[in-house]
């Protein structure tokens, strides 16, 4: 089954956007293609007039840092993220989440930009980017700008960006300060689709033996990825202890809105997993920040 007609590999963002304009809605941005092409085949989509492969655009395929931020191009593969010393140093949760997506062959071509552009409510990379309070650089309606990651999500599978007109160039998030740590974990079921039953990413900044600022994202939790703001507030300023973490987990159980899906899990199970995952990731992130949770 033919899935596309023409295939372009532009060498610059300008060239890519020019092609989008030229095809006036008939061309699709593609990176690894592991979601796009599989979905197009499954839905028996009419062939795209053109695919515009952004993985040979240097500014979209590098990981770099300046004093404040780590930058990851939208066309960076999951494997490159998993192996990146910069990511491992500043956002190990992102390496953990990118390391469980698909298998090695998929991670070798699939990109973080593609993961986010698909706007899945529980894209593993997305969940960690939310906890990292990441921003995305986009060309949206012809204008290039940085915006909060959350602004890209309009609904389950619905992105702000139109993949035939707009472009997701890359991401940035703050470097990890001293006394800070991150962690990601997810629960899968061994049957059916490879979508997480629930996943959780946290970013923790310690203030001595207490939680300073905390960011946590459990997904899927509603139609778009969101932070667990009440839980974050509860933790801020509290001593790092089993009791405090237990009360945060108890609040997470109350806070999450997880529905029963016969393809994934019951809401009852997912609530349990919210508790388990938040506890496990908080422990891990604290340990990485330099403080083992006292028993």
């Amino acid at each position, binding site marked *: 089954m033919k899935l596309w*007609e023409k295939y372009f590999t532009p060498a610059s963002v300008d060239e890519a956007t020019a092609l989008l304009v030229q095809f006036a809605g008939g061309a699709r941005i593609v990176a690894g*293609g592991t979601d796009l092409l*599989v979905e197009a085949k499954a839905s028996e989509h009419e062939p795209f007039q053109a*695919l515009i492969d952004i993985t040979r655009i240097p500014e979209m395929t590098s990981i770099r840092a300046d004093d404040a931020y780590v930058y990851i191009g939208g066309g960076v593969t999951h494997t490159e993220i998993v192996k990146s010393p910069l990511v491992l140093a500043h956002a190990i949760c992102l390496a953990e989440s990118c390391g469980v997506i698909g298998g*090695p062959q998929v991670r070798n071509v699939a990109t973080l930009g593609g993961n986010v552009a698909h706007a899945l409510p529980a894209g593993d990379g997305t969940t960690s980017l939310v906890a990292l309070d990441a921003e995305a650089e986009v060309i949206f309606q012809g204008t290039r700008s940085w915006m909060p990651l959350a602004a890209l999500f309009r609904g389950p599978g619905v992105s702000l960006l139109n993949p035939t007109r707009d472009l997701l160039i890359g991401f940035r998030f703050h470097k990890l300060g001293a006394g800070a740590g991150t962690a990601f974990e997810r629960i899968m079921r061994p*049957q059916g689709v490879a979508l997480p039953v629930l996943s959780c990413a946290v970013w923790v900044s310690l203030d001595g033996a207490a939680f300073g600022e905390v960011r946590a994202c459990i997904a899927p939790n509603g139609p778009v990825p969101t932070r667990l703001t009440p839980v974050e507030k509860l933790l801020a300023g509290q001593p790092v202890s089993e009791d405090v973490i237990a009360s945060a987990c108890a609040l997470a159980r109350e806070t999450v809105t997880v529905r029963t899906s016969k393809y994934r899990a019951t809401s009852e199970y997912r609530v*349990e*997993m919210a508790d*388990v995952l938040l506890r496990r990731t908080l422990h891990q992130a604290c340990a990485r920040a330099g403080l083992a949770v006292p028993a």
Partner: protein
Amino acid sequence: MTRLSLTINGKPVEFDADESRTLAHFLRYDLGLTGTKIGCEEAECGICTVLVDGTPVDSCVYPAFKAAGREITTIEGLANGHLHPLQAHFIKHGAVQCGFCTPGLIMTSCALLNENPAPTKDEIKHALKDTFCRCTGYSSVTNAIQSAAAEMRGDAPVPVNEPSVDEPMDVVSRSVEPQEVREKVTGAAKFTDDYVFDGMAFARTLRSPYPHAKILSIDTAKARAFPGVLSVMTHADVPGENLHGLVYRDWPVLCDTVVRYVGDAVAILAAETQEIADAALKLIEVRYEPLPVVADPKYAHSPDAPVLHPNHPTGNLLKHIKVRHGDIEAGFAEADVVVEHEYRTPTTEHAFLEPECAIGIPAGYQDYDKLTVFVGSQIPYQDRDQIAKAMNLGQEDVRVIGTLIGGGFGGKEDIAGQIHVAMLASALKRPVKMLYTRQESLIFHPKRHATIIRIKTGAKRDGRLTAIEAELYGDGGAYASLSDKVMTRATTHATGPYVVPNAKIDCYAMYTNNTPSGAFRGFGVTQSAFAVEQNMDMVAQALDMDPIELRRINAQRVGVTTATGQLLRESVGLLETIDDVQRDMRAHHADEGFKWGWTTGTKAYGWGLACAYKNTGLGGGAPDKSEAEVEAFEDGTFEVRTAAADMGQGIAHVVAQMAAEELHVPYERVKVLLCDTDLTPNGGPTTASRQTYVTGNAARLAAGALRQAMSQTAAEMVDHAPETVRYEEGLMRFDDVRLDYGSVAQWMKQHGVQPRAKYEYWAPKTAPLGTGGDMHVAFSYATQAALVEVDLETGEVHVLKVVSSTDIGRAINPLMLQGQIEGGIVMALGNCLTESFILEEGVPWSRFLGRYKMPSIKHAPEIISHLVEHRAADGPYGAKGVGEIPSINTTPAICNAITNATGVRIYAIPVDQDALLRAMKKGERAVTTAWHDVR
């Protein structure tokens, strides 16, 4: 067309290609590099893996032009005058069965070793997580990779995990190299889709989107008018009888008035290219009137259900199968404990990695003097006969040539595209290929039966079973396929491998509008064992008896009678298999004493054990015969010819070993030709674990007859008494005179005698169910124990270890036989934990491979397997069947282990961690729902 420049296996390539090509299609269909296989086109199975600049990628979803300027390495590029160490060690460790996934496994491993010269088992699991193999169970693959890595580092290779056997002979009971294994590891092996014929057209099948509907009209005009379309055919174009079927002829070649399942074939077309065929298929217009759907076997049995096959005399009840033995009421009256429960098993999918493919060649094309079909099928002669009936031809007017088969497991017994390509090729006078997509394969072919099994087991205080009463419902789906036989086996084996003096078992095989069910490794016994063996553990618990002791007390042994009235006269090794497994379980706890279950932190652990038996051969009164022919050539080599399908299980090397043993020649001198209905005599269906026994005997006896004839001739040639012949080092010797087989063959030919012998072997006669005679020629026996870990916080279940012992009569090829056992166990682990083909009111939800999870290397447990060799008197060298027995008791062993770990009993599979966790949290003792049952 656009110029594509890249490097492939070190050579620059410039090719004018279509920009819409995937890399896999470009390699296979444009460049003819067919070593790269396509399994799913969903980036799920990984067998299409090639390296792009050294990085493994799924070539099936990788645009060819994305690879522009890159360096591509395929399986064809690995061997450089000699085999790559991975290729050599895959062979040495027995890591190649069907060979279809082998290129993908090797390429993925190659990338791993380039990066990591000494990978641990966990690192191998990580790297190969999404490169699937349905045959091996991954143990041998892991050993092969580590062994190759060691050799590449200059270290000593990993020793081959060779099972020990009794009394190895010269060739038999030796782990010789399988036939065509070198072709499989280098990518040279040809499966059906790898064949190319001049002028070949490409076909597609239009399938019903409804589970049950009336066909109001079929309009093919638009499709016919589409440029490049060569032919569109419907039921009106079937030249002969518009029905096929292996047991009941109830399945339309092309539906005429009604469709009975999603996937029923309605029209076929052929076009100049695959892409044109794909596009034109959407232009065939069919108007349907949906009819009420029968989606459940119990509903199918109710008077309210619409009757799906009005010509079938018992309506939706395809068959009521009964076992009656002793006095069931008296049996339960004398029982001190009675355990009764209901179990459910889902529809499951073979997921052989090679989707179905058939190529039709018209009579008169090149040297083909008759209508010929190339296909990887388990039953070539019945394919031929079914094609002939539908084509209105004589059986001798059709030739079926069996290609290599990329896995079957029972799923390639029914007709797929064989008749359709015969129709199109004959009409067009051109070769026509019909390759199913993975998604089409999933919805089309018969599956393992979903069952509902209620079983009641009675026992006396001393542990002796007194009675078993059972009721089984089997969802046969839309067409009969092998439902009658499969559900009969589920029924006759529903006592388990035990002495049960009183039994009453009723099975209802039902027609529904679900995907048809048919043969699948285990053949119904996989389902009944799930119920039987868990009831056994509960009987033991009720009696406060060790579950192993309970099984020992009741185990079948020589001299007892089965519930179908068969006196077991020999070859019942069940008790020894229990001994082996119990010894290993105890050894695992050498330090602290054996225990069935324990908890450490947030993890619960448990052992579970289950026994099984499985018939060898068709049995039940069906005549079971095979023919084989052995020919000697003047160069001293031999050829064994038989139409017995090798789908990776290894009948090719089995018959070659037996022939070599009988001829007293080295194995390397015997080649095998399988499955050409014009050149090879009928080896019968590859089903019922029968080939080693039945076709093995035919090959053994044919080889023996040839040796006799050649010895006679040799004696005449040298003027010695024939009985003084001795066989030494591949030669015949009379006193001091030595003669090689080649010269004898030459002499025979010169004297007008063909140096070949054919044998038609009839397995011992069996008796139909209900007559009380011997239903089967032999049974294989097995015991397995599983060690599981259950996460008490998440309900996740991991199988850490499986210990197995199997009585197979004799191991003809110990290493490859072990591969059958390991592969069977991992496949059964999938049955227990991961696999469920989901239908919603007759509509398959599992219509993508991405929605059907089979076990990956990550799920593969440590497997320890022992062999017990209780010779079967009539089996070749004492051998019995092994194909199915390993896939029977793994599921109940795991479920018993989960109970011993958590106290929760699993009544429905695949095990649902969600329901298990909820049960544990609430202190409930039973899980009665599976994944997808939640509302």
